[in-house]
């Protein structure tokens, strides 16, 4: 239960005003006196930036409103497809209706274009987030409004189309039946003698001119003249049966057509739903497409990066190895250049000798090498035992490894 205290607010505004006046305080920009303030207010409000956006939005809305009013105004005339037969005063013709259709469609298109334009402009303009959000929401509202008005139109149109179809069906039915009856009668007539033919012709012509009820009565009239019929009763019966069969066939065909028609209407409705959904999904699919493309790009880049990383890694390993080897060698050399170089030389020499030996006598005398190694060992042990030992060990190992491999080979 909300209580309106606007009046109270106005009253308090007044009291504040009078109080200010009495005190002679100039409050802010409001001015001391009331009248002054009012003028000031007017003055101030006029240059207030009345947003371009909102005025344009309102314009679009008023356009849509006009369309709605127009549609509602002509709704009755538009829908009543029958009435132009029944009533005498002026009604809409079909061309006028088509005109309305066309105009409305053009109007809707322009409206939606205007909205689209507003949207792009609103996006383009530099604004804060909130204003942007607000504007897009406003545009959503307008779009929704347009949609609702469009719905009025499409409903109206659907009714019209349906009625036209109904009318067509009805008008088709009527001559159908009458022609059927006349046809059947004429088929019977065809076998009648020529003396009656002219008379019959006149009656059938009359039949055509008159409406169905009269045709019925004619039928009766016709029956009177059956006395002069030359056809045997059997023949008549055959004809009658054939006639009935034909009628039945026609009826079943007609039923089928009607059913199919119903289905078509239903399908068209479904179609409508589907198109709406498809249109809705279009943007989503676009979005997804974009995302997928982006994702593919990312994956490609990632693969590149990974490949590079692998490469770097391998290079890095080689460098590390090299560095370590260099380190160890430099350590060796720094420790004792002489012995180290000696040992390296020995190692190389041993290996080489071994290699040569293997090649010549295919491993008959490995002891030779070991002997040599032993000599080098004794020589080097005097220089520097630890390094020498290492060198000797290395030399022996390499020698043995070489021996082993060569024997295998």
């Amino acid at each position, binding site marked *: 239960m909300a*209580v309106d205290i606007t009046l109270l607010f106005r009253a308090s505004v007044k009291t504040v005003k009078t109080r200010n006046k009495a005190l002679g305080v100039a409050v802010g920009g409001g001015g001391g006196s009331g009248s002054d303030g009012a003028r000031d207010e007017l003055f101030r409000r006029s240059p207030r930036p009345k947003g371009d956006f909102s005025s344009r939005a309102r314009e679009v809305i008023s356009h849509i409103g006009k369309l709605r009013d127009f549609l509602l105004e002509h709704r009755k005339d538009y829908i009543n497809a029958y009435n132009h037969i029944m009533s005498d005063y002026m009604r809409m013709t079909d061309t006028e209706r088509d005109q309305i259709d066309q105009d409305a469609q053009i109007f809707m298109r322009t409206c939606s274009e205007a909205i689209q334009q507003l949207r792009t402009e609103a996006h383009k303009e530099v604004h804060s987030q909130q204003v942007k959000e607000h504007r897009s929401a406003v545009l959503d509202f307008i779009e929704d409004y347009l949609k609702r008005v469009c719905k009025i139109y499409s409903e109206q149109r659907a009714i019209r189309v349906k009625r036209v179809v109904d009318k067509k069906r009805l008008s088709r039915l009527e001559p159908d039946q009458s022609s059927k009856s006349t046809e059947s009668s004429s088929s019977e007539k065809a076998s009648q003698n020529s003396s009656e033919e002219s008379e019959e012709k006149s009656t059938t012509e009359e039949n055509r001119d008159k409406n169905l009820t009269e045709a019925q009565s004619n039928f009766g009239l016709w029956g009177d003249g059956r006395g002069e019929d030359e056809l045997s009763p059997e023949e008549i019966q055959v004809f009658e049966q054939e006639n009935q069969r034909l009628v039945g066939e026609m009826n079943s065909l007609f039923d089928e057509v009607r059913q199919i028609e119903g289905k078509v209407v239903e399908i068209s409705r479904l179609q409508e739903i589907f198109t709406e959904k498809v249109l809705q999904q279009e943007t989503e699919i676009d979005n997804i497409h974009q995302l997928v493309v982006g994702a593919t790009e990312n994956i490609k880049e990632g693969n590149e990066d990974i490949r590079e990383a692998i490469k770097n890694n391998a290079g890095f390993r080689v460098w590390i190895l090299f560095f370590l080897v260099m380190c160890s060698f430099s350590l060796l050399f720094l420790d004792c250049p002489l012995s180290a170089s000696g040992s390296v030389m020995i190692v190389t020499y041993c290996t080489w000798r071994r290699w040569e030996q293997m090649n010549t006598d295919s491993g008959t005398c490995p002891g030779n090498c070991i002997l040599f190694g032993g000599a080098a060992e004794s020589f080097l042990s005097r220089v520097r035992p630890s390094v020498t030992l290492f060198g000797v060990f290395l030399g022996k190992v390499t020698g043995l490894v070489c021996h082993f491999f060569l024997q295998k080979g």
Partner: protein
Amino acid sequence: MVRVKMAAAAAASIRERQTVALKRMLNFNVPHVKNNTGEPVWKVLIFDRFGQDIISPLLSVKELRDMGITLHLLLHSDRDPIPDVPAVYFVMPTEENIDRMCQDLRNQLYESYYLNFISAISRSKLEDIANAALAASAVTQVAKVFDQYLNFITLEDDMFVLCNQNKELVSYRAINRPDITDTEMETIMDTIVDSLFCFFVTLGAVPIIRCSRGTAAEMVAVKLDKKLRENLRDARNSLFTGDTLGAGQFSFQRPLLVLVDRNIDLATPLHHTWTYQALVHDVLDFHLNRVNLEESSGVENSPAGARPKRKNKKSYDLTAVDKFWQKHKGSPFPEVAESVQQELESYRAQEDEVKRLKSIMGLEGEDEGAISMLSDNTAKLTSAVSSLPELLEKKRLIDLHTNVATAVLEHIKTRKLDVYFEYEEKIMSKTTLDKSLLDMISDPYAGTPEDKMRLFLIYYISAQQAPSEADLEQYKKALTEAGCNLTPLQYIKQWKAFAKMASAPTSYGNTATKPMGLLSRVMNTGSQFVMEGVKNLVLKQQNLPVTRILDSLMEMKSNPETDDYRYFDPKMLRGSDSSVPRNKNPFQEAIVFVVGGGNYIEYQNLIDYIKGKQGKHVLYGCSELFNASQFIKQLSLLGQK
């Protein structure tokens, strides 16, 4: 026409009434009519935290959009000027809010201003705004000023709480603090009374008030009586004149307001519960009809995993639109799990049907006999297309409840809440216990320290005579070993000593929870929520103290507990201090308001109670809504003093 509308509104629930009031406010205080082809209007909504709390359980963002709200912003956030839009303010008339509004007026943020105050604004504050408007020469831009009298939050059709923002102010702790001064107490009472007054204005009825003597509830009753009386006496501005015209069948049936104090029943808020809504509130972060779940994404890999477990927060709204929630919020949990399963199955069946249809349609081109089937299929397709959105919505709801229920179940399993529930029920109904309390407390696998504390407090509260010192020491030792903080116990001790003087401890209705037969448990194991190890407990109707008080007051039964309750009738010319009710007719409508905090357990109990009574309504309100852990926190703060 207005009369018809009012009559229709009289039958509506408080939730609908508040929603209607909010919608009217958003529609510039013109009754809202649903119009299909109305021109769109747009406006921005500015609210403070109070307004947000009031609106959020009632209107979703989509509904706000339908009302033409493009932006909804907090008053104290940074707002950019949008010069060509009307702004609807929905704020509490506090100093800082008024200041901020004046600032908005000065900065010419919006085109026009519709000011709505949640509760009545004082004259001086109104003059402040007038002053600012004058200074900014924006008096004409202030289009409407309204007092809305909507200062309460409706959570359910028949449940409301006072406020959410400054709930410390009216909490149990604030009311029961030993060192509270008179002025502080006054402000607390004023806040409560103001909100309650708003509630009755929105309800459009003057209640008959009953309350217990010598409690905070009595203070509230006295003040509320005074306020209602003043308002009724001022015939010109009375807020209740409208309803006498159109209240229809309720015009001579006035509602009964039962004001109870939290202190009459401290065990219930500590109790472990077994119904869905209360469980959600107890173990999850359930707040203003929105539950926040923390889900660990993906599988929890080995503890040594370098990646920290990522938690993504999810929040679900449990609203009145959710039929499953409406149906099952009061059901015991195993039943809920089963129903979720059933719903899921029925949903799957429907989905399969749609899929089957799709395959038939796909086959049709090749099938010779398809044309005859076509006749069926178009109809089927139409129904399928129209039912799809419904189906999607259903799926969303099922997913929601599956997630929530799984989270709840996880808690139940890890904390063995079913054991606690059963045990506490036994304590409260004073049946023999099959396991000693000490065992429960020292069991390291059952529950958190908080659960143990709750259990012990319930035991302590509902015990006829306090356990001996030696026993107490033993319990205390066990509790500290279990890692409990003993401060709440200290407060409860004081409270018990005090309550014993005042009255005998209330007894809790006899109860029966029994484990369901083996058969049903076997049946349950097939379901997705494997309820292994969780006992399938069935609740039998038992009335909590609050419900029993309501029962005796509503039916005018004589009951030693409630006979001395004070009686206030604001419509009577002279206030009297008697406790003798004037009319002896039983009431049709009642409002239970708990001063000092309520919970979903009591709400559910009341709902179950009133379900059995034909043509009666009950509304449950409380000054704040807390779950057991929040309550324990308050108790421990009280105990520290």
